[in-house]
């Protein structure tokens, strides 16, 4: 490198690393991003795996990308176009279906078909969720205070938080506590009677966790769906034109615009420390890059247990990181299709294929899928969240052809006997066989199939355990506990080493908040 020594190196060019880089560069720092792979984006990538067909290989929708990041980095100018993904179609084995549409009347009419009560409850439930999402939103936007610390700044932050929750009023506070403690199935049982509705809604509570809909604590994740809703017309929820990789590219473009440098195929082997301070990184090539600030966008286990020497860190911290739950529970199947599939429950290639398709007929179906995984098998009948990106953005596939992105749960990282090629294909077959029960013509349309197991995700994207969120989004690993008690402020026991990935608060999804909040922390520390 002929350029000046960087002020900060960022390990990992995933979307959070890039967001962090953009914010640091915007503040005038000389920033260098180091990405192991040939493409930027980490798990938020679009790749032409099969000629002419662009796969959202891993992450496939934009759900919680923070509006302030879109504004601050002017991502629209850098090419980010978020297209509407407005419906959720749940085909049912008996040939019926449930679709939730963007249009209120239409959704009400559809739910009404299944249950008059549920059609009405749906509105009130939505209202409560919006109220609670409004209550939780400020928490997601702040760096969590440490409840065990007596530092004045921390106390003030805790006091603000306490005041915030007290201000909610008894009714909403009660609902919030229920949401934090109940299972999504039990919580939804209090509201609805339609199985397909409860199952499809509770599915959003289990994505990326190694829990079932009847596991306590899963209700909280229901809120995340409504987080996107409060941004309403801003529409941070949808499908990025060009696939999820387009989000990463837009952020990278913004970062470069602020002067950040980005190197691909530059895997970091070690984070270098001296006297308890981070001083740079060592690349696999043997190249050493010195920098006074090192930011890790990779998951906590990889950061602390692989990229550092055990002596670098306090024993209790290492312990906490080793105990951090990061069990991968999902797989991904991407298909190139000769045409749009037709579902028995709602034939044709209508508007219902332009949204999400959820294979979640009953709560019991989901719980049974979890049962398989609990005992070391992949689900024979898995939960699936499916999107046909080419129905929304025709540029994702050749004209008339389609790509199908299938998120599959459960596929345990620790499969009985371990993952190998044969088990990967068996898993892929289970997915296609299950789907063909709903869309029989699918198998004849498949031109190419890519199957990713949690082991593949670890291998390809460096996600420890194949966990898509850098650590499970369960309550004991959120907020001031993420990734370890006392270390939720993006700092680490090593001075000048920061964490900016999904393993930090507020966690996973293509939301960018950890990258942004970590940058704020770094810039504050630097001014001292």
């Amino acid at each position: 490198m002929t350029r000046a020594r960087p002020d900060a190196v960022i390990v990992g060019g995933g979307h959070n690393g890039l967001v962090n880089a953009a914010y640091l560069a915007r503040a005038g720092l000389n920033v260098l991003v180091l990405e192991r792979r040939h493409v930027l984006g980490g798990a938020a990538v679009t790749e032409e795996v099969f000629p002419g067909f662009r796969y959202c290989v891993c992450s496939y929708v934009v759900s919680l990308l923070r509006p302030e990041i879109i504004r601050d980095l002017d991502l629209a100018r850098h090419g980010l176009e978020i297209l509407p993904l407005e419906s959720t179609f749940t085909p049912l084995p008996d040939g019926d279906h449930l679709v939730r549409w963007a249009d209120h009347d239409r959704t009400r009419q559809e739910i009404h078909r299944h249950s008059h009560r549920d059609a009405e409850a749906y509105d009130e439930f939505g209202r409560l969720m919006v109220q609670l999402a409004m209550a939780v939103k400020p928490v997601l936007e702040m760096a969590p205070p440490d409840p065990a610390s007596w530092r004045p700044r921390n106390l003030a932050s805790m006091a603000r938080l306490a005041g915030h929750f007290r201000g909610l009023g008894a009714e909403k506070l009660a609902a919030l506590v229920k949401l934090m403690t109940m299972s999504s199935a039990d919580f939804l049982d209090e509201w609805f009677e339609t199985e397909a509705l409860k199952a499809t809604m509770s599915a959003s509570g289990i994505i990326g966790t190694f829990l079932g809909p009847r596991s306590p604590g899963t209700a909280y994740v229901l809120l995340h769906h409504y987080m996107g809703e409060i941004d309403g017309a801003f529409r941070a929820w949808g499908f990025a034109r060009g696939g999820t990789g387009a989000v990463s590219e837009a952020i990278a473009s913004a970062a470069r615009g602020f002067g950040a440098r980005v190197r691909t195929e530059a895997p970091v082997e070690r984070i270098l420390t001296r006297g308890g301070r981070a001083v740079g990184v060592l690349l696999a090539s043997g190249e050493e890059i010195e920098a006074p600030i090192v930011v890790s966008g990779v998951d906590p286990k990889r950061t602390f247990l692989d990229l550092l020497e055990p002596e670098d860190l306090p024993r209790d911290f290492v312990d906490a990181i080793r105990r951090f739950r990061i069990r991968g529970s999902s797989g991904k199947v991407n298909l190139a299709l000769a045409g749009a599939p037709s579902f028995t429950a709602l034939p044709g290639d209508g508007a219902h294929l332009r949204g999400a398709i959820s294979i979640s007929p009953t709560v019991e179906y989901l719980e049974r899928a979890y049962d398989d995984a609990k005992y070391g098998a992949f689900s024979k009948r898995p939960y699936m969240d499916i999107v046909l990106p080419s129905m929304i953005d025709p540029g994702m596939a050749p004209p008339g052809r389609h790509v199908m992105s299938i998120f599959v749960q459960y596929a345990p990282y620790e499969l009985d006997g371990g993952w190998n090629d044969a088990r990967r294909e068996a898993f892929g077959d289970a997915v296609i066989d299950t789907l063909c029960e709903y869309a029989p013509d699918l198998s004849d349309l498949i031109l190419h199939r890519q199957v990713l197991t949690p082991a593949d995700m670890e291998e390809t994207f460096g996600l420890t355990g194949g966990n898509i969120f850098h650590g499970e989004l369960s309550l004991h690993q959120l907020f001031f506990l993420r990734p370890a008690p006392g270390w939720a402020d993006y700092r680490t026991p090593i001075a000048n080493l920061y964490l900016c990935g999904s393993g930090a608060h507020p966690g996973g999804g293509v939301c960018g908040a950890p990258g942004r909040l970590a940058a704020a922390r770094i810039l504050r520390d630097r001014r001292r």
Partner: protein
Amino acid sequence: MCLKRMEAPLLRGTPLHPRTSQLCQAQNWRRWAGYVVAGSYELLHEREYFAIRTTAALIDVSPLYKYQVTGPDAERFLNRLIPRDVERCAVHQVLYTPWCDDAGKVIDDGTVARLDPDAFRLTSGEPNLRWLQDVAAGLAVTIGDISESLAALALQGPASREILQRLSDASLADLRFFRLTHALVAGIPTTITRTGYTGDLGYELWVEPDQAIPLWDRLTDAGAGYGLLPAGMLALDVARIEAGLPLIDVDYIPSNKALIEQQKSSPYELDLGWTVRLDKGPFVGRQALVAEEARGPAWRFTGLEVAWDSIEGLYAELGLPPALPLTAWRVSVPVYSKGEQVGYATSGCWSPILKRYIALAHLRSAWAEPGTELEMEVTVEHRRRRAAVRVVRKPFFDPPRKRALPGAEGVRGVSGSAPASGAPSGAGDAG
């Protein structure tokens, strides 16, 4: 790609849609509860409005939500649900009523018709089945959603009685305001209620969906010589503002939809205190309403009349004649007193029959006395201005024929004036 398939229509037509869609020359459709209904049939809705006020108009109100309440505890249930005293509701009587949540905030409003000692029919603006079932917990009552199995036609206007009488086998001469009768109308079994949303003489006809078109056609034939016209939502909106009748989602937000407390209203705040019988025994929201009654409501829902000179002057400054809202507006408009905002108007229009610019407004109680001079924001040529307005009693328009029996015209009240106190006659069936 997806255009090749004809999908099911996204919005439903009412049972009358095959007929109304033939008649709707304006292609002006509005959404109402998941249905499409005519906004206006003609290019301008003015004639339809005048049909309501001077001859007769036929309005498709089928999208109303309707519930059948039956069982030995039906009366008990309704007494628990609504603030009015259902014990005092005779068979074949209809009550206008709001109903509240536990905090005494209005969820919805509609009519309760007593068909039999143990059978009632309830109408509402929003779906309420879940609420009704929850309030009915522990009571021997069955609540059926009959929204789709009952079509509704409103026949409104001064000539409505004569037209309907030509076809009806039951005498309408003694059918009083807010009473009902069962009849064969042109041979079609019909429940006739002397109710409506226009504040005029009028009836609502409740029939099986497959009888709706034959009934419509026979009424149209019978009314031809009287000047009967089909009327759409635009004409109805002007009429209901003149009648001072609040519209859910426009003039108030149902409490179960409100995101914050300030968006909710109590019956007192909606000027529906006359429906609240605190002395009748427990009902949902009573406790909160007792407290509110004692301290007085913070808000009032009143009429406003825009001073002609003021609005004319604002336009004259620019060399323009005054522009008046011939179509009712439904946006929130600030109302001021000496520069301080003291409320907001939620609906307004030019009243063609009164020749006045009127509005319905929520005002802080201290500024809600009739006669209070205030200012309302108006946009004149891209600029926000304030027009002088005066607080007036509702209803703005209240013809004696609305509640009179034939031959008793003019006995009970004077057009345009309001009763001295208590129950405003425009709001429904009180008195």
